[in-house]
């Protein structure tokens, strides 16, 4: 259970530094179980920040989203740092971006929060639909205590947290400047059971499954924008000369888009699940990314987002890389 007062103190200390622009955290949303990213520019803003099991957003997406406009004459670039509240998975995203030289380590100040799992909005909305009033969620051992309109409900964590959280091997931030609370010791292991079960299916079954999923896609690109690792200035789908993926929405182009996005995240996806959460059509995008994560671990012994000094997966090679598939 994260001490919110300690969190707010840390944010206040960070935001009052001269070299910090603002600190990004979470605050209460506008209805029901919603939680929204909050930007604290001064100590007063910091008082609104919270941290609860409902804080699912990956805030690591924001440093790369900041627009750097052309400077006016005489104007100096604002090189101050950005403060971020990061859970375990979020910090891996920052480490991976640093590894790829998208950010420098000095550009961010990380306030780390140990996390035992966050609540899947779909699951909690299915249990308590139609919430407009104030709700409150706290941790209590292996259960969540949910207070709605004065009444409390105790639900086991397993019923409400994301599937990805049940196999999380990094509950503590892998990189941070300030840690709120004590590090958590966790015995959860990523065994890729879901991926392995799917791999056993026949080719026809696999295609039938993905065909149904890709036909649902409306190419809104919410997955791309919610992903902290998708920060290309010009995405491949927006390129017109040459045009690789057409803009029409049909099975062929949707398949090309989803496969290429999964490929571009090979060795970079840290499994935060934001893509799946943002997708309005409920396409199981993390299924593809998890499979690639498993394969690169096996084939190249590489795990993204752990070591900022390592070289990125597809930018390096080893002379003895697997090549049994090569004729």
């Amino acid at each position: 259970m994260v001490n919110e007062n300690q969190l707010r103190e840390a944010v206040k200390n960070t935001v009052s530094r001269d070299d910090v622009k603002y600190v990004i955290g979470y605050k209460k949303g506008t209805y029901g179980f919603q939680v929204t990213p909050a930007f604290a520019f001064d100590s007063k803003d910091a008082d609104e920040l919270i941290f609860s099991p409902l804080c699912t957003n990956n805030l690591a997406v924001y440093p790369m989203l900041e627009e750097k406009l052309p400077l006016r004459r005489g104007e100096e670039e604002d090189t101050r740092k950005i403060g971020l509240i990061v859970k375990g998975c979020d910090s891996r995203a920052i480490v991976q971006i640093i590894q790829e030289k998208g950010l420098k380590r000095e550009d961010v100040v990380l306030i780390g929060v140990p996390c035992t799992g966050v609540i899947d909005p779909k699951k909690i909305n299915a249990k308590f639909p139609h919430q407009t009033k104030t709700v409150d969620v706290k941790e209590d051992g292996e259960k969540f205590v949910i207070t709605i309109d004065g009444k409390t409900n105790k639900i086991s964590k397993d019923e409400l947290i994301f599937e990805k959280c049940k196999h999380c091997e990094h509950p503590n931030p892998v990189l941070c400047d300030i840690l709120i609370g004590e590090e958590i010791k966790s015995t959860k292991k990523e065994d890729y059971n879901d991926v392995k079960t799917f791999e056993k299916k026949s080719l026809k079954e696999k295609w039938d499954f993905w065909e149904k999923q890709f036909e649902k896609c409306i190419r809104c690109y919410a997955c791309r924008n919610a992903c902290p690792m998708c920060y290309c200035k010009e995405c491949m789908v927006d390129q017109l000369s040459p045009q690789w993926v057409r803009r029409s929405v049909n099975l062929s182009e949707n398949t090309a888009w989803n496969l290429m996005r999964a490929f571009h995240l090979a060795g970079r996806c840290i499994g935060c699940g934001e893509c799946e959460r943002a997708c309005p059509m409920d396409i199981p995008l993390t299924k593809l990314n998890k499979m690639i994560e498993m394969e690169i671990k096996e084939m190249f012994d590489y795990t993204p987002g752990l070591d900022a000094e390592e070289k990125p997966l597809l930018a390096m090679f080893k002379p003895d890389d697997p090549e049994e598939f090569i004729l």
Partner: protein
Amino acid sequence: MKDFEPNIIGFLCNWCSYAGADLAGTSRIQYPPNMKVIRVMCSGRVNPIFVINALQQGADGVLIGGCHPGDCHYERGNYLARRRFAILKKLLEYTGIDPRRVRMTWVSAAEGKKFAEVVKEVTDDVKKLGPMQHFKRENKW
């Protein structure tokens, strides 16, 4: 499948496999005519989107030809391509596309005979698998 002539696209690297294909031709070695060759300077230039575009536009199989490890004209392009391709193959198989449709090979400029054998093997494999229908562009307009 009788009478099915597969369409195979070959991305051959200029310095090794393209030259090897050339040698197969000048040596008058017979091999199936189903492969349409696109010359690239290095196998490392091959972007996975090329493979997916090829499958979308009617190719039944794709072959990527590069230099042997250590022999790349640009020192390391084939190594990078090897990594990329290993991941692409797994991704396609996971989606339900038969991995025997998309192949990679090391063919040097002196291996004309090997090139012909590779093309024969890939053509035979793809012929058995049948036409690629899964995510072909329909161009229904």
